[in-house]
């Protein structure tokens, strides 16, 4: 089987401006939503109490909401969690009241209404922990960015490093934009997914850069644009298949992983889709505009590294 029967190199770079414009608009929208709507942060970041309760029959959310409201909590969120029988209640942190007291009080009230309710899970996070997590998250992001830029700069060239990180940070912002737009819950697991995506989509750029470097060595007569086009074209089949496979796994998590893994898988899905886009259309183009040349990549000018196994060599160069 072969999905990709491409006869000629696809002129990606000719349309680079269009692709980057699309990319920029998406990015701008994401930033806009991030600022206008903000992220819907989970209890882990904001502090507060989370309760998951389960009824034997479909739960009446309005009734639950009413019951909890009579206890005098402000800003209570009540929503279904996975199934109609499971309900998630989120209480804000209160000064002077421990989470045990909060959850006990809520449970007692719910039990009085419907004796069949059972407590499945509680989670309480103090406000100081939340701030720390946010700071640690940013530190981790900074570490990843610096680490990857350094590695790529050493392994390839600073122009590649910069363009890869720009392309992939733009993915991260777009994921965050989606979470802001749909007001999906942004939890620690999602943060982990975002950082994993960052590492993963840099992969993609690395594969293409690797090919660009190789092409510079092999095809001495091609100019930069042609080299890049050829590199992207010859790796596109691998790009799609790899991402497809990873997406199969993520889809499996989306289907079977339940509510807890839902947003984690969601973040990965968006990350994978935009990861392809940015690596293929954005990263290489930025490198091109930064002025990548053959000399940048092949510093000690070695003699043409021919492959003895490749009979076509002579014909091509």
């Amino acid at each position, binding site marked *: 089987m072969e999905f990709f029967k491409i006869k000629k190199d696809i002129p990606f770079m000719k349309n680079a401006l269009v692709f980057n414009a699309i990319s920029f608009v998406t990015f701008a929208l994401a930033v806009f939503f991030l600022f206008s709507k903000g992220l819907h942060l989970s209890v882990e970041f904001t502090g507060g109490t989370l309760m998951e309760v389960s009824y034997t029959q479909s739960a009446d959310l309005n009734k639950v909401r009413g019951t909890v409201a009579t206890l005098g909590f402000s800003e209570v969120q009540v929503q279904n969690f996975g199934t109609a029988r499971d309900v998630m209640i989120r209480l804000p942190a209160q000064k002077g009241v421990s989470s045990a007291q909060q959850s006990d009080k809520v449970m007692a009230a719910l039990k009085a209404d419907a004796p069949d309710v059972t407590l499945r899970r509680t989670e309480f996070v103090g406000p100081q922990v939340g701030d720390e997590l946010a700071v640690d998250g940013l530190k*981790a992001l900074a570490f*990843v960015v610096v680490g990857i830029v350094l590695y790529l700069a050493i392994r390839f060239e600073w122009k590649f490093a910069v363009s890869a990180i720009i392309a992939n940070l733009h993915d991260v912002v777009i994921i965050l934009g989606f979470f802001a737009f749909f007001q999906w819950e942004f939890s620690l697991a999602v943060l982990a997914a975002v950082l994993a995506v960052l590492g993963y989509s840099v992969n993609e750029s690395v*594969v293409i850069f690797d090919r660009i470097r190789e092409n510079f060595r092999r095809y001495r007569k091609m100019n930069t644009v042609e080299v890049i086009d050829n590199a992207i074209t010859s790796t596109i089949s691998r790009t799609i298949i790899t991402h497809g496979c990873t997406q199969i796994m993520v889809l499996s998590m989306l289907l079977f992983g339940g509510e807890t893994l839902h947003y984690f898988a969601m973040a990965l899905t968006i990350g994978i889709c935009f990861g392809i886009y940015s690596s293929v259309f954005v990263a290489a183009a930025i490198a091109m505009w930064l002025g990548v040349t053959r000399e940048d990549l092949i510093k000690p000018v070695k003699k043409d590294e021919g492959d003895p196994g490749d009979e076509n060599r002579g014909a091509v160069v």
Partner: protein
Amino acid sequence: MNRYPVWKYAIIVIALLLGVIYTLPNFFGEAPAVQVSSGKATVKVDTSTLQRVEDALKSAGVTAQVVSLEGASIRARFESTDTQLKAKDAIQKALVADPADPQYVVALNLVSRSPVWLNNLHAAPMYLGLDLRGGVHFMLQVDMKAALTQRVEALAGDLRSVLREKDIRHGGIVRNGQGLEIRLRDAQQLALTKSVLSNQFPELLVTDAASGADIQLSASMKPEAARKVQEQALKQNITTLHNRINELGVAEPVIQQQGLDRIVVQLPGVQDTAKAKDILGRTATLEVRMVDESTEARAAEREGGLVPFGADRYLERNGQPLIVKKQVVLTGDNLTDAQPGFDSQTQEPVVNLTLDAKGARIFKDVTRDNVGKRMAIVLFEKGKGEVVTAPVIRSEIGGGRVQISGRMTTVEANDTALLLRAGSLAAPMEIIEERTIGPSLGAENIAKGFNSVSWGFLVIVAFMCVYYMMFGAFSGIALGVNLLFLVAILSMLQATLTLPGMAAMALALGMAIDSNVLINERVREELRNGASPQAAIHAGYDRAWATILDSNITTLIAGVALLAFGSGPVRGFAVVHCIGILTSMFSAVFFSRGLVNLWYGSKKKLKGVSIGTVWRAEGSSAVKAD
């Protein structure tokens, strides 16, 4: 060119063997068990305890599958939960004489059903996190500022009494935040005070702080001394928590320091958060009272008669009753420290108590009025009192430094000091994070994680087989081996597996296939360009390797960042993520090459390889020549 030397195959075989052995315990499931561990710092679990457990089981007519001593606990495995419960009762009766004061913790537990030879190899199933097995998780923050304040307060009291002893007059010692301010009258006193401070208070850093006409010294804790106080406070809090949790009868409690000032407590299987919290937050109280020396009391002590009005009967640690007055002289709040030591003159083991200023004052008055009488130090835990020690007052004791001596061995002195300290937490704590996960939710989470991994895995392998034929099958096998190694390493490290960890496992597999896709695409490309099959395989693997290395390292950078800065669920994710990347490099490149070499390598006149369609555009050089 596509042959591995024997040693490479040997590595593969050994790695596979290890992988299988360490993965195996995960398949045996769990059996009900009873676990016996020490309930007190002074009680040790050893082979003699093992003998007692075995005897108890024998006399109760309960047969255990395996009884073994593992580390500091004994585990007895049973066929069913019925026998498990019966056995627990029997062991409890045999080992724990007084249920209110348990020497051993006898708890129900689940242990792996894996055979003994696997246990001997230290192969154990993966350690499941709380979100997979149910239980309670707390994170407690120790108030270090309070610990320091307490210590500075104590030092202030000490300094006052030392200065008084040496007849050095000062104009007041005041605690100011974490420091002390000492006002003095003249330069001579200043010099004397300075020498006292430098000789007897090495913990303090002294600076001149004259303000106007006043002669003033300010002293603060040296950083290393402060650090030591904090370390000790944390250690003591952990010890105290250990003692308290022992009462809950939890089989495998986790009590760990996290960072500089935090303690994580995890109680698998415990559902009653309220009780757990109650026990964690409880303070044992210490009271100093006078011994009732009236004749009625003496008689009541000897013959066990009626206890006189206004007195209580408590047992000493050797079991002897002692009649103690109800009136409380001092409480544990006034006791700042208790340390074992030796008397400077007699070299006898002693326990040194340090009281705070208020306690010292009261203590001085009481001892002055009661020379020759006995006082009792009573420890109340769970509302039950026990006399820790009841020394005779020899003279008036001022200055808040109390020495308890007399016919003690070093061990006894240690125990007494521990008991006197055990009651109290060195510094107050606050719960800053709490999680409860029901047992059914844990089981569901396992199922969800397992389903995600297995369905994703199956679909990927199926796709690879269809798209790349034989090479796809090799990739599929390599992916399976990757999973095997991942599980084996997680089992070996006993790293905690959580639901995010399982997600990371799924993701690791999804990403690992990338390497094989890269290789397979490269081999196809070589074939497309007209290379011979053997050369194509060789070049495909060789050329793909650099790319695979680069891309895995960038992914690993992200993994390491998560590991370094993540906490809780993120850490669980990061551990599996990082291990997954490392195992994938081995399985996808080294192992799959081994398979390919084994299959194709020996065929000299290989006509073609089964790698799916190798599509060529019309005119074979069309792809490249432009």
